[in-house]
Every structure is written in structure tokens, then in C-alpha cells.
């Protein structure tokens, strides 16, 4: 029923990123989390500007449902590693932003663990320039380091970073262990009106850790990463936030990639108590589990029993793949099915404000090695939507919730500095069009990231992205629309 007509209005071949187009979308299923409405609609875009949105009623809407072509505001990723500067053999601004657009994202927060790290105003400027040069219209939202050199010893020049345009502060994978310093960071960032984003991990509990502590790690002889290492850090952060908000009411703490039931319970309780703490979960922590390390290849929601307890992959006879696949090495590690279920529930009930990808590409040299030597990270920015749609197809999430967690959810975490145009009529269009019914195969041909290896390699996912428009320009276009 849906139809999509693309007309080039400016020079540039079909498929060229950055070009401006006219677009008429008829009888698509529009999800607008800003208006809190979804349904059949027509959209008209002229020279990149969203000219009209017409919600369809009656006969015009007949046969249009949320299983076909979907239009949503462009997604915003709170957590990605684009590896520039210094790591362009793993990813570049160009490939990272191209991958983002393929995943439906029109704005990406880049973590500052680059070489050199983004801990000064000048490096922010260099990263912004690299994004501009890439030609991608996907917006780079740079995150600055919390501490100088991400060394956890003294504050980075947070004011200078704020002036240079960062949207928040994080030391990400090298989380600030010194509680006094972290408290100061929360306070100082609040003065600047920016959130501190913490990767909660007590590093003393995770020395050499390879896999989530549990039966799979025990059977595979992998060093355990206890859930307590995350829950304890979350509890510390929340306790510090409670102190800081008394002094600086604008303080904001965002906890990224929470992966355990215990951490999410802490956040749920803190929010019930009115604390300004937000959090995100990743697609891989809610869809995949530690049993994938042993060779299982079923979704997390298929790996729990009726009581919500993790099933045993050996008993179920589901070990289909070879164990120790390094594409599954990630930090925090893939957890039990019970924890994955907790991540999903947190997303459903709003405890988790957003889904963030923690897109973390690595080179073949860093991944084609022993499991314990492999760099942690899943390059998942292109597969986030598909994994979430698998959960929707399984009846565990609604499409509206998925879109909200990829759009208004993360935008609210970042606050006023980030104001996407999205579906505002008269503004440059910022949206994604995907075909929920169309499956695509995850492999090195389909993925635009440079990252080596993917846990879903060779498998198919629903929701092939057809077109991504960022700030009125083409960021990604599937070959089929040409």
C-alpha cells in the first residue's frame, strides 16, 4: 500500500550521501513520539524541508498497519565509538556515521576514548571538523572526558569542553574510581548544565574479567565479571548524586549500558525517590546472553523459563556455534537471560530512558585473537533497530516504545542543547524510513562499519532501513529506492 517517491532536486547521483531530495511518502505508518501519535500518514518533503504531514483516516488508512513501511524521527545514539582521531583502522567518522545512518540514526554521541582523548577544546574541534569533512549529514554530538587524559586523577577542563560544544562528560571504559573526584565532576558538570555519563564498573572486581560470572563462565573457564561490580558502582554514583543535588539542583547523572537486574533496581528506586538519574540499555544486552559464548544462538527471551529463570543451553541442546567467538566479547559482558529480561523490562517500564548502541568497532588484529585477548566491543549501530524489532515481533515491546527509546528518550537525557528538527513541519526533515517486513542479512557486505566481525554475522534481521534523512539531507539510501 505504501509508496515512496524520491526525486533528486540537486546535482549528485542517486545514492550520494548529503544530497537534497524531494520525497513523497504515501500511506506509511508514521510513529511520532513527540506528538505521542502513530498511524497511517502521508509525508511530503520539498528540497529537504518537511512540507506536510497528513494523518490518514477512513478509507485512505485502510490496509496500512505497523507491519509495513514505517516512518519515524531520526534516531539518536547516546553511546558510540567512532574511533577518530587515532583509531581509523577500526572506524572513521566517515564509516561510523555511514553505519549510523544505515542503522537509522541521524545523531550520534561519540565517546572521548580516542587517541588523543577528547579532553580539550581543540580536540573537540578536530572531531567536529572530521565529521564535517566526512560529508555525512548525521550530526556528531561529541562527549568530552571527565578527567584529564581519562586517567581518573584530575578534572578535564570541563568548562572549555562545554564551550567547544560537548553534550556531556564521560570517561566511559575507564570509569572514575575515585569517589571524591566523581562527586566533584557531577557538581561541576551541573554548573555547566551538562550530564555526567558513567560506565559503572568497580574495576577492582573485574581484573582480567572475560565473561559474566555464572554457569557459562564457570563451564568455559572464563574469568568472571560479577554483577556486583556494576551494581556497586551504580549505588555509589546514586549516593553521590543525592549529595550533589542538594548543592547543585541541576545535577544530572546518566548511567550507560546497564546490564544487570540489580543495577536497574537501584535506578528504579532512585528515580522513585526523585533523583535526576537516567540510564540506557543496549540492544545486545537485552537480546543476547552469555550462553552465546558457549555457542547458543537463541534470543534472550527464548532462554528464560516460565519463572523468568535462565534456561540451561546444554540441557536444551542449543549449542549450535563454536564457543569463544570474540565478536561476543564486550564490556559489560553479555549477561544471563534473567538480566537480559530485566533490561527489557526496564525499557518497557521506562526505568531505562533510552536504548544506546555502545557501537564499538575493532580491527581484525584486535578481534581475531584468543577470547581473553580480544578487545571488548560489538559494532552494533546498524543492528540495533533489527534486534529491537525482534523483541517487538516476540510481543515483548511495542513499536512505539522502541521509537521513543531511540528518539525522545535519549534527547531528554541530553537536555536542551540537543534539539532535533525531526518531524516539525517547515524544518529540515530528520527521519528514518524502514520496512519492518523486510529482512536483511548481517554480513560484511551489508554493514558499513569498518568493525571486524559481528555476533549476528550471517543471520537476518527485520526492519531493513530504506532511507535516512538527517537535517534534510540523504544520510543513507538503500539501493532499492534508486
Amino acid at each position, binding site marked *: 500500500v505504501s509508496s515512496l517517491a524520491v526525486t533528486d532536486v540537486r546535482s549528485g547521483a542517486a545514492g550520494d550521501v548529503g544530497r537534497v531530495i524531494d520525497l513523497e511518502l504515501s500511506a506509511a505508518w508514521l510513529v511520532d513520539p513527540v506528538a505521542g501519535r502513530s498511524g497511517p500518514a502521508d509525508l511530503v518533503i520539498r528540497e529537504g524541508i518537511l512540507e506536510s504531514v497528513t494523518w490518514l483516516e477512513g478509507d485512505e488508512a485502510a490496509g496500512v498497519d505497523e507491519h509495513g513501511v514505517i516512518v519515524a524521527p531520526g534516531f539518536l545514539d547516546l553511546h558510540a565509538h567512532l574511533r577518530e582521531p587515532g583509531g581509523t583502522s577500526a572506524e572513521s567518522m566517515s564509516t561510523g556515521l555511514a553505519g549510523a545512518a544505515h542503522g537509522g540514526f541521524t545523531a550520534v554521541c561519540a565517546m572521548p576514548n580516542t587517541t588523543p582523548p577528547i579532553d580539550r577544546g581543540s580536540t573537540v574541534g578536530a572531531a567536529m571538523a572530521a565529521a564535517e569533512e566526512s560529508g555525512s549529514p548525521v550530526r556528531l554530538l561529541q562527549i568530552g572526558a571527565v578527567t584529564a587524559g581519562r586517567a581518573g586523577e584530575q578534572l578535564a577542563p570541563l568548562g572549555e569542553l562545554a564551550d567547544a560544544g560537548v553534550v556531556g562528560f564521560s570517561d566511559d571504559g575507564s570509569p572514575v574510581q575515585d569517589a571524591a573526584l566523581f562527586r566533584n565532576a557531577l557538581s561541576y558538570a551541573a554548573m555547566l548544565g551538562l550530564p555526567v555519563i558513567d560506565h559503572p564498573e568497580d574495576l577492582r572486581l573485574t581484573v582480567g574479567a572475560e565473561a559474566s560470572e*555464572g554457569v557459562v563462565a564457570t563451564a568455559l573457564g572464563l574469568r568472571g565479571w560479577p554483577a556486583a561490580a556494576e551494581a556497586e558502582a551504580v549505588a555509589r554514583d546514586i549516593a553521590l548524586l543525592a549529595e550533589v543535588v542538594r548543592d547543585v539542583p541541576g545535577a544530572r547523572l546518566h548511567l550507560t549500558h546497564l546490564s544487570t537486574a540489580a543495577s536497574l533496581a537501584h535506578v528504579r528506586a532512585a528515580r522513585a525517590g526523585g533523583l535526576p538519574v537516567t540510564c540506557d540499555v543496549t540492544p545486545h544486552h537485552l537480546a543476547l546472553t552469555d550462553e552465546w559464548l558457549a555457542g547458543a544462538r537463541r534470543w534472550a527471551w527464548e532462554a528464560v523459563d516460565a519463572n523468568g529463570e535462565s534456561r540451561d543451553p546444554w540441557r*536444551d541442546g542449543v549449542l549450535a556455534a563454536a564457543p569463544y567467538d570474540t565478536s561476543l566479547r564486550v564490556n559489560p559482558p553479555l549477561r544471563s537471560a534473567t538480566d537480559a529480561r530485566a533490561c527489557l523490562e526496564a525499557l518497557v517500564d521506562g526505568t531505562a530512558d533510552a536504548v544506546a548502541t555502545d557501537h564499538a568497532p575493532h580491527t581484525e588484529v584486535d578481534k*581475531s585473537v584468543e577470547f581473553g585477548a580480544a578487545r571488548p566491543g560489538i559494532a552494533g549501530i546498524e543492528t540495533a533497530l533489527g534486534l529491537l524489532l525482534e523483541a517487538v515481533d516476540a510481543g515483548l515491546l511495542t513499536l512505539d516504545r522502541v521509537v521513543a527509546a531511540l528518539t525522545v528518550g535519549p534527547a531528554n537525557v541530553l537536555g536542551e542543547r540537543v534539539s532535533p528538527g525531526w518531524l516539525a513541519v517547515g524544518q529540515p526533515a530528520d527521519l528514518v524510513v524502514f520496512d519492518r517486513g523486510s529482512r536483511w542479512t548481517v554480513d560484511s557486505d551489508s554493514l558499513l562499519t569498518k568493525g571486524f566481525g559481528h555476533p549476528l554475522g550471517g543471520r537476518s534481521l527485520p526492519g531493513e532501513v530504506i532511507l535516512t534523512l538527517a537535517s534534510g539531507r540523504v544520510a543513507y539510501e538503500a539501493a532499492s529506492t534508486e
Partner: protein
Amino acid sequence: VTSPGAGTRARSGEDQAEAADAVSRAEPAWPHRHLLDTDVLSWAQIELVLDTARHMAGIVAGERPRSTALHGIGVTNLFYEASTRTRVSFEVAAKHLSADVVNVAVSGSSIEKGESLLDTMRTLEALGARILVMRHATSGAPYLVAREFRFAVVNAGDGWHAHPTQALLDLYTLLRHIPGASLRGRKVVILGDVLHSRVARSNLWTLTAAGADVWVCGPSTLLRGFEAWAAAGVGGERRFTVTTDVRAALVDADAVMALRIQKERMASGLLPSLGEYAARFGLTRERLAMAAPGCLVLHPGPMNEGVEIAPDVAAGPASLVTAQVGNGVAVRMAVLALVASAAGLSTGGPT
């Protein structure tokens, strides 16, 4: 061949012959080109190793001439961790089969110089390695190699994960010495640093497959994670018992396997001292007296005598420590011959 494990119904001889026939049509008796752990072995396959090893023992004992099963075939021992007994055992085993043996010892420093494991494997393959016997400090390392190596990989110990030939030789040794030659219902205790032990993990698969009543015992810090595994069961079904109570573990035991305690455990805060370990968990004559009469004693070696095992127990009448070493050669010969055959390498039969 029937499994002695739980849940196997008794079958008539005719049924068995028919079943065995069906199995041999469906897949070869030994389909494993690599031996990376004992977890993938059916009881029939374990018995095939043991039967083959019994045959090989005659060669080891000098009763029969050496085999030419691996004549002209390159067996490379690639050891990333220092090891004397396992490496020599594989070397002797390969020589009894007339293989061409190459030993490669890689120190930690040369890893840091940067050649990746896969590059090393490709180099050795180009130099004629056809069976790669691998020892590595990282759990799962042989799986990486097996994915790309064109011939056969035998795991000689990976990190905390697996040491399949050790578990098979332990089983072989136990079955030779236990009255009735069966472990069904027999209490077998694994005592010591279970957390860090690849020997313990591989033995859990084989001993439970053999139907033994397996207990693991040690200080709580060195049993981390095993209570949950015991509850889930090995392979999702074969339960074992975890305890910190050495008395409960040893009482009426038919066999006890002591594991090596390493000094690093104190540095990482897992144990107060070796002395405290010896006092609470050391396998002494007094403790062994709690076990069933004639309780067999094993140790994968090398032993810290006076720490995890008292010298008089290690050298005592029930000790199989020396027998383990001798049996190790026969079991490794069996494994080398079987993987060679599955990889299409053998020039002759298993003998």
C-alpha cells in the same frame, strides 16, 4: 555400547547390536578431527579412547613393537606455558606412533613481540604440522586455532578451561584400579583449587559421564561459580556436589584427586596462606583415613608435597600418581591416532 550415566534404559544384546550398527551408519565411531574438551564426547567415544589406550599400553610396555600409525606425520607440540610432563608425554606418545615430532615453546615475551596465535599456527602448518598439540594460558585459545587449522588440534590445556587428555587418562587410571572396573555410583572427590583448574572441569564431564558420584571440595574462594554449575548439572543434567567441608567430601570416598595450589592465590587474596590451606584441606593420611578402605589417590602433577598432598600420601600404597604418568602416554597415543584418523591423516590403522 551403552552409557552408564543416568537415564539409560537397559537394552537386549540384539537391540545393542542394531543400535551400534545404526550409529556406525549415521556417523563414524570417532568423528572428532580435533579434541578440544571432553564435553563433546559421547560415552561410546570415551570408551573408544579407553579401549584404544588399552591396546596402546602394550606398545608403551614394550610388549609389542611401536606402531606406524602416524609414520611421516608431523606432530607439533605448541606450548605457550611451561610444561614438562604433558609435553614429554605427548612427545613420547607421538614417537611410539612413528610421528615426526617438533616441539615449540613460546615464552610470554615472544607473544608480546606481536606474532598472533593464528600467524604462528599458519607458520607451523606451512612447516608441516598436521597434528597441533596446544597448551595455552587463555581459555578457548585452541578453539580459535581449530577454526582455521586444516588438520587436527589436540588441546593440551587451555587456561582454566579444559585438559581433555588429562581427564581421559585419569578416567583410564581409575577404571584400571577401581574394583569392578566401573565408576557407577562410586564417590570421586576433586579436592583443591577447582576455580582455576582445567583438570577439574574436564574431569567433571568425564567422571559424571562415567556415572560417578562426583564431589568437588576446597576453600569457598576457590569454588566460586561451581555451586551454580552443580545445581544446573554438567551438560545441563549430570549433578555433582560442591562442599567446603573436607570431612563430608572424603567420608566413604572411593577416589580422591588433589589439585595443585599455586602461590599466586595468596597474592590475589583468595587464600590467607599455603600453611592454612595445608592445615584445612591438605590430603593427609589422617584425612584419607575417613575415606573408604583402599581409596585411590590421584594428582595431575606437579605436586606441592606438604601443601595439597602429604608426601606419605603421594607415595603411599593407594597413590596412582606414577601410574597416571605412564597411562598418560597410552591415552595420548589413542587420542593422536583417533584424531589423525578423523582428519584423514593416518597411514595405517590405529596400531
